[in-house]
């Protein structure tokens, strides 16, 4: 397994009057096909990590490498989903899914000639997350969980090699959240896509990830790296085993330390 996303000694601060460092000496390496989760106290720079890895922000110091290339512009092989589904209310669910294809090459220039094929692909994707035949509905006709599934599909439609998730289930109720954990688990198992999940839900991190990284208080850096060797495929039942809760406890104590 080779490193797919690497941050090495990265310092970053946002432009502006309050230019305290958001992350300092941040190093992390995620392998191809790996499911990585990043947890930490709020405001620790988790979202900054996302922006750095997707080329929305560039580090003040250190290097960011994705798929063997130094990041100097937006990383088009990445898909992103956030806590808010950010769907366009004037487009149907299906058209929302097609939005990335209207932007990113080579799909962009093929949009007209391959529209039917793309629409079929979008429908398949919807079916795979349990939204069969919901494509013609508008986002506001869907429940919060369904919107978030749609948002995930939008992140995946251009078949990215890297999926970046920034607290994607934070706004959902507990049951819907667990349902979506399984959706993500299955998507990742099927496509072997590299996933970086930023979250503050430790159970979520442990259930989904191959490795969990704990970040420190701002300015953030990685303080602990924990391999999760629970066997796959993991069933939701695993979250009630003692092995699982032990890991959660262990990570929790690291976070408590990080918050001090």
């Amino acid at each position, binding site marked *: 397994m080779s490193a797919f996303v690497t941050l090495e000694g990265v310092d970053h601060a946002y432009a502006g009057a309050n230019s305290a460092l958001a992350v300092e000496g941040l190093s992390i390496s995620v392998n191809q096909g790996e499911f990585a989760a990043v947890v930490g106290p709020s405001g620790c720079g988790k979202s900054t990590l996302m*922006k750095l890895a*997707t*080329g*929305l922000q560039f580090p003040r110091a250190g290097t960011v490498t994705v798929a063997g290339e130094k990041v100097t*512009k*937006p*990383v*088009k092989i*990445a898909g*992103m989903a*956030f806590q*808010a589904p*950010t769907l*366009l*209310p*004037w487009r149907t669910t299906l058209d929302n899914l097609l*939005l*990335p294809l*209207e*932007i*990113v*090459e080579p799909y962009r220039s093929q949009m007209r000639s391959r529209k039917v094929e793309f629409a079929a692909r979008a429908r398949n994707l919807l079916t795979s997350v349990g939204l069969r035949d919901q494509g013609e509905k*508008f986002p*506001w006709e869907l429940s919060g969980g369904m919107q978030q599934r749609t948002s995930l599909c*939008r*992140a995946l439609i*251009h078949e990215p090699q890297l999926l970046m998730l*920034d607290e994607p289930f934070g706004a959902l109720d507990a049951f819907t959240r667990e349902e979506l954990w399984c959706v993500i688990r299955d998507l990742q198992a099927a496509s072997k896509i590299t996933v970086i999940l930023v979250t503050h839900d430790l159970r979520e991190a442990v259930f989904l990830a191959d490795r969990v990284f704990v970040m420190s208080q701002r300015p953030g850096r990685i303080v602990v790296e924990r391999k999760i060797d629970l066997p796959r495929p993991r069933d939701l039942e695993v979250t009630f085993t003692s092995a699982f809760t032990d890991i959660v406890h262990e990570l929790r104590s690291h976070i408590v330390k990080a918050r001090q």
Partner: protein
Amino acid sequence: MNRTNLLIKASPWLFTIGLFVVWEAAVYIFKIPVFFLPPPTAIAQAFVDYSGPLARNSWITLQTTLIGFALAVGFGMLLGLLVGWSRAMYAGLYPLMIGFNAIPKVALVPILVLWFGIGFVPAVLTAFLISFFPIVVNVATGLATIEPELEDVLKALGASKLDIMRKVGIPRTLPYFFGSLKVAITLAFVGSVISESVASNYGIGNLMLQAQAQFQVPLIFAGLVVLAIEGIAMYAAMAILERRMTGWAQRSGFAQA
């Protein structure tokens, strides 16, 4: 249920008729002289007696207003896109626009007359000047409130600023834009009538000024009624346009409750 609906449908007419009935009654009960406040029946009579001039001049006012309004829509949209496009543009132009908007437009009419002479052109320009501001503000607001996460999603895909504008910015601005048209069209009437009363030989504004000079009070009020009717008609046209174009943004039951 059906009955309430019917009542709601009928209520605008009932209230309007009610207003006129109360008005008429008040004039009789308090013996208000016709040159002070004419009763609706006298105003109706003025409509009959002066139907020719009223029709002619209201048509001119409507044209003037619509041309000024059309200019405001075009210019307001362009300026709004410009201001919403770049923060430097926003920072630079906003104070200027606020200052400009604070100037009473009636104070500009003499300058417009100086440049263009009295008549049609200053009236169109006054209508334009008074009505473009809400359009600019609304278009710019729509653009400025794009969700940053959505912008990130698109930027990460390599979207240019123009892409984001086309796919997200402009569509999401449309409800703001069409909403502002309702405000702008009413203001445009204000502008054209102001200019007509101060510096023109045509239009409802001028007609009312002349009626005042000849002490034909019912005719003045007839002019007001014509303006109200034109204003309501245009507002309704804009509201229908708004619903047609941006139905997706009007799913709240709040206004219908």
